[in-house]
């Protein structure tokens, strides 16, 4: 009996401390997420390591280290709200792309798509007969003036404050106007029920904010710039999966982009390597920049993939 009571006491003490700690530290660090942490975090065994904190009333307290530095949980995001104070941007260095295909695989895995389908495509491009061919990965460009958003009759696809173009799959009526309006063929459609059928473990694993990954039959989906990663401050899976560091992802406001290996100034990168945007003349203002395929790291090698189309 007494033992249980003690445990209860210590539990409530823990909870109290947690509240204090979170109010004082986590709230500042992780913003509104921390408040959810109070309710969401499971009890963790004490690590024994104590950390000194400043409590809200100005006292120095010691808490177990396992109570702070919490693992930020996946919480349902409001899909109509972007990450606060961010302007995501992507740079794709065509000089580095060797058509390894890892970005596609990682994307398929991340979004529970069959391996042959992903939100990112890699095309063989060749401007003219005598110019050299090169590989061009094309995700959604998350345009600042998106033609897909313009034509949507029900506001099921929209521009977020963080720059991404998002889709509400519970709103989409499946008219596919956005698909024909997108000049970059970035959007894919859930033609059938079983097309992207998830396994039972996958269904359990699926994050509630992966709107696209829920694969609702008869609705449109596309590259979403991985909002779950953005929420944690990590890079999208295509970026980290690329063995050649082709993709840079970051925040335009911080003027930094990273490909996982190096973090560089966006403005300098674009300036030094003459960055450009694909089909600039359409005026869609993509948020994905390209660096021209000059001084290439790899010789161009034909892939079996492209021959399917011929």
């Amino acid at each position, binding site marked *: 009996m007494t033992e249980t009571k003690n445990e209860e006491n210590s539990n409530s003490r823990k909870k109290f401390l947690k509240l204090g700690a979170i109010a004082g530290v986590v709230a500042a660090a992780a913003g509104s997420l921390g408040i959810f942490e109070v309710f969401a975090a499971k009890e963790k065994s004490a690590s024994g390591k104590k950390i000194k904190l400043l409590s809200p009333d100005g006292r120095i307290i010691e808490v177990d280290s396992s109570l702070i530095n919490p693992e930020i949980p996946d919480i349902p995001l409001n899909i109509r709200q972007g990450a606060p104070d961010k302007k995501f941007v992507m740079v794709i260095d065509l000089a580095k792309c060797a058509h390894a295909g890892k970005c596609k695989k990682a994307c398929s895995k991340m979004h529970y798509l069959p391996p042959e389908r992903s939100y990112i495509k890699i095309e063989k491009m060749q401007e003219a007969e005598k110019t050299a061919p090169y590989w061009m990965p094309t995700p959604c460009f998350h345009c600042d003036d998106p*033609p897909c958003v313009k*034509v949507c009759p029900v506001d099921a696809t929209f521009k977020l404050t963080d720059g991404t173009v998002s889709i509400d799959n519970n709103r989409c*009526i499946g008219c596919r106007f956005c*698909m024909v309006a997108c000049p970059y063929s970035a959007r894919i459609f859930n*033609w059938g029920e079983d097309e992207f059928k998830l396994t039972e473990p996958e269904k359990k694993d699926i994050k509630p904010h992966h709107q696209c990954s829920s694969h609702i039959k008869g609705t449109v989906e596309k590259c979403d710039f991985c909002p779950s990663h953005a929420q944690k401050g990590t890079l999208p899976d295509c970026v980290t999966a690329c063995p050649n560091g082709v993709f840079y992802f970051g925040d335009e406001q911080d003027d930094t982009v990273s490909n996982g290996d190096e973090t560089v100034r966006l403005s300098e990168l674009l300036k030094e390597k003459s960055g450009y945007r694909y089909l600039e003349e359409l005026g869609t203002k993509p948020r994905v920049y390209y660096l021209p395929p000059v001084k290439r790291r790899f010789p161009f090698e034909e892939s079996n993939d492209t021959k399917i189309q011929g």
Partner: protein
Amino acid sequence: MIYTDTVQYAEEVKRRAKTIPKKEEQKFSKETHELITDLLPKKFGRSGKIWIGVLFSICLLGLFAYIKQLRYGLIVTDMRDFSSWGIYISNFVFFVAISLVGSLVSAILKLANVKWRTPLTRIAEVIAVAAIVFAGIIIIVDMGRPERFWHLFVYGRIQSPIIWDVIVISTYLTVSLLLLYLPLLPDLALCKNEMVNIPKWQRKLYGILSLNWKGTKKQYQIINKSIRVLAILIIPLALAIHTVTSWLFATTFRVGWDSTNFGPYFVSGAFMVGAAAVIAGMYILRNHYNLEKYITHKHFDHMGKLLVLLSLVYFYFNINEYLITGYKMKNVEGEHLQSLFSGRFAPMFWMVQIFGMMIPILVLLFRKGRKPIPIFVISVLVVVGAWFKRFLIVTPTLMHPFIPMQNIPVSWTHYIPSWEEWAVTAGSLAGALLLMTLLIRLFPIIPIWEIAEEKGLLKNIKSMKE
């Protein structure tokens, strides 16, 4: 129907006698009686029943295919990520196009004070209403989530051309229904009073629908005025409905669609196919119901001239559309054009351009070409050509995106509609014909009162004129 033998003719006479009062009980003059006898709705004969049966079976097949599509999703079609619009959309454009005939005959010709149009107005309105109803149905069929149709009204964004289309189509349907209904009122009263041997419900229906029509001077004033107002209203609406439909394509960046020519190009094509549809309808009804007295060679001749004029206008917009693009041959735009002119779509393209436009123009320029039989054949060619023309507007463009199609299954690189798509499309076309047939079965297909008025017989018919 053309009576090939006397037995058939006798049957037809007997059939008519069942619904029409006998001569000796007649209260009308010979001429009036003849007019009423000829034009009141008639029961289906054997051919009529077979026709209904065939259309109904096609509708059922279409419904079956659609249920399958609802169950498994749009995967049962051959549409995929690149060819994301298919024959549902081209069929929708076809329906919208053909519905423009209503405004052509009952508004433009009316305001131009064309006298010969009277016997054609109702045929045109019946075609228009049936077509626009099925345009609405087929667009819902194309939706991935049809049960979310209400989202259009709750979350509708006025910036989207689809919402513009929803607005103009529903307005056009309303005005077309009124343009069908209002001129029907005197005829409905006539049907109620003069048709014999009809079931109770039918008489009751006429009674309710005729809105207590008595034929007073005031009533005629009201409908004449309303029809005039509607006739004026429907012209901008007709232009809007098809221009907006063309904007579903022209507001995108896609090659072959990114054209400021698209509005007038679509509208002129629509008037052309609409006129052809009326001619085909005229021919069939005239033969089936022996309306030679009312729909004469003169009508075919006039409609033929109108059709050739509309075809020439459409020809002009075709030149404007293809020549300018072909002159520049801009990148993907050029590739797209090449696929139409000499590539994989060339056989269909040239069939459509030659049989659906060039030959009709050549034949109809001659008086002999405007005789009923040749003009009927030409009109059918125009209507069929127009359907495939819309396929050629929708599909080849989607097969030419800016970023080349690569790394996709071979089956995605072409679009061959699945049987489900054909069945649903055929079902919608059969459904439209079925609706037209039912309207013709219930209501006089030629406005009796307007003919009577022209012949000065209106005062003889009590239920129509007080």
